[in-house]
């Protein structure tokens, strides 16, 4: 049965986030005490905190929140609690864009003799921009193909087109891997594993804007999403303009996954697992699900990034590997639980 009601869960998660955030800031190859965050006695420590630790902790929290909320709305849209943002081809499209950027950037740099750096466009790398364009492009293609003026968006068609796009993207990625040099190949595969080590304040602000957009624009959609869970015609009978709402949600979710993928690579399972856990605890009502998912996503990705930084310190594991390792067994456990309960 339900452990908490939705509002209570949101408060608990908000309170739990504070110690996790502090932990994510103070723990690392160079140790700090909590007091160091607030004082500026040691100039080197202050620099590490200000330029590395704090933006990284904040970025992991924001990316986690955006991914989890995107997952929650996608699952509502598809009316399937096991749907994932990567299903509609965003991750696949983004990885093609990123690989292309690495490949083209690499060859360009070679031709121009190195004065064009691949990784500097106001803090956002060429790779991020490529990933965002690829992801958003994939969504637009999937949406166009699965929407007809007469029948609206067919969820089944959309899933199938998403699969086709992912297959095409995999082929393109293989082709580019084949053409890439060893160095580029390593960068491509590292990017696809998801990484937060490029965190800086520009990325934090960008992700914060995205989260703000989510909170403002999704707030009024929560009840409509609840109605949509009953079915499209049922939602219509409850006074929801289903077509308009679906379009808005697809665009928002695509933007959310696109931005977070552009900033941190592919981080699997956060969008799938987090809303699932929240539903188990406090039910599927979107009015609390969206906020609670955002908070839990933030906490979990901060913890995952902490683990990624600690396991083989001073080196780092890609955080996407950690989320997959933690997420898959948990997901299987959830599946078995639901099966037994039915």
């Amino acid at each position, binding site marked *: 049965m339900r452990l908490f009601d939705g509002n209570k869960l949101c408060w608990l998660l908000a309170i739990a986030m504070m110690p996790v955030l502090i932990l994510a800031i103070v723990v690392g190859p160079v140790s700090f005490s909590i007091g160091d965050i607030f004082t500026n006695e040691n100039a080197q420590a202050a620099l590490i905190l200000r330029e590395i630790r704090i933006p990284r902790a904040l970025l992991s929290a924001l990316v986690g929140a955006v991914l989890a909320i995107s997952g929650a709305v996608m699952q509502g849209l598809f*009316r399937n*609690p096991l749907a994932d943002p990567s299903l509609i081809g965003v991750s696949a499209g983004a990885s093609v864009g990123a690989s292309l950027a690495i490949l083209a950037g690499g060859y360009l740099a070679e031709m121009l003799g190195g004065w064009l750096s691949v990784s500097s466009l106001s803090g956002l790398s060429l790779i991020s921009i490529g990933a965002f364009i690829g992801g958003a492009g994939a969504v637009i293609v999937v949406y166009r193909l699965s929407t007809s003026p007469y029948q609206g968006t067919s969820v089944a068609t959309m899933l199938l087109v998403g699969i086709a796009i992912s297959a095409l993207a995999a082929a393109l990625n293989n082709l580019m891997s084949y053409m890439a040099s060893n160095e580029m190949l390593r960068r491509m595969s590292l990017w696809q594993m998801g990484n937060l080590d490029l965190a800086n304040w520009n990325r934090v602000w960008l992700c914060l804007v995205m989260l703000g957009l989510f909170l403002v624009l999704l707030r009024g959609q929560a009840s409509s999403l609840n*109605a949509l869970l009953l079915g499209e015609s049922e939602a*219509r*009978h*409850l006074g929801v303009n289903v077509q308009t709402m679906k379009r808005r949600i697809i665009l928002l979710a695509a933007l959310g996954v696109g931005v977070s993928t552009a900033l941190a690579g592919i981080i699997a399972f956060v969008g799938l697992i987090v809303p699932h856990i929240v*539903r188990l605890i406090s039910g599927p009502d979107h009015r609390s699900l969206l906020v609670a998912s955002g908070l839990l996503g933030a906490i979990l990705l901060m913890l995952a990034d902490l683990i990624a930084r600690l396991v083989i310190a001073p080196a780092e594991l890609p955080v996407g590997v950690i989320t997959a390792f933690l997420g898959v067994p948990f997901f299987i456990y959830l599946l078995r639980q639901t099966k037994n*309960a039915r």
Partner: protein
Amino acid sequence: MPDKATSVLQIDCVSLEVEGVRLLDQVSLSMERGEVMALVGPNGAGKSTLIRAISGEQNLSHGQIMFHGRPMQHWPLQELATHTAFMPQQSVLEFPFTAREVVALGRIPHSSGHLVDARVVNEVLVYLDVAHLADRIYPRLSGGERQRVQLARVLAQIWAPVEHSRLLVLDEPTSSFDLAHQQLVVKLLREVARQGISVLVVMHDLNLAMSSSDRIAMLCCGQLQAVGRPESVLTETNIRQSFGVSAEFIQDSRTGRRHLAFTESEKY
């Protein structure tokens, strides 16, 4: 159009074609305030199509459907949703809402406030004999229990009087009900109609249709075969023509009520 303006629902010569197949052929019907109309007919007669046409889900090829004298498609969705409620044949809901939360979804079009919503939800839960299931997880309920919860949801949507008189459309609401709950629905339709709500209900059980409705509309092959009082529509000739079975009326010697008995099918 003074006479049309008085009808709650006015279906004017509606035809509907999908991919060259004519699903509805010049159907005309009107419903008055507080009237229960049963829609009967064999499988594929166009009953559900007619309901989808009324709800605006399917565009008409010809004719028009008006609610309180105003074409359906001209009503703002939100306002329409406070006056009309539709219960589909089946609803697939995979998410672990409790029964109470499912019923509360019926209050979405209203901005009546948390307290009023909670009161309405409690009332319909009791009314449909699902109060004891209120905190159970909906996808784990039995088929009949789920159907009762869905019926409670559509009732919650039009529970309180609003500006114009209300319309309730039910597509086979009793298909998974046991006998006692079928009788509950018959009683419910009567009481709902007494409050001024017009009810259009698709039914397969002709005896149930006869005992619960004021008028019956019989559809066959997309055409309206007959419409009128139950005894004038449910005749042995009409039933044989539409359903292809022989029917006979049996009078209950104690209650004096008439029941239909079906003897044989000409088709099989």
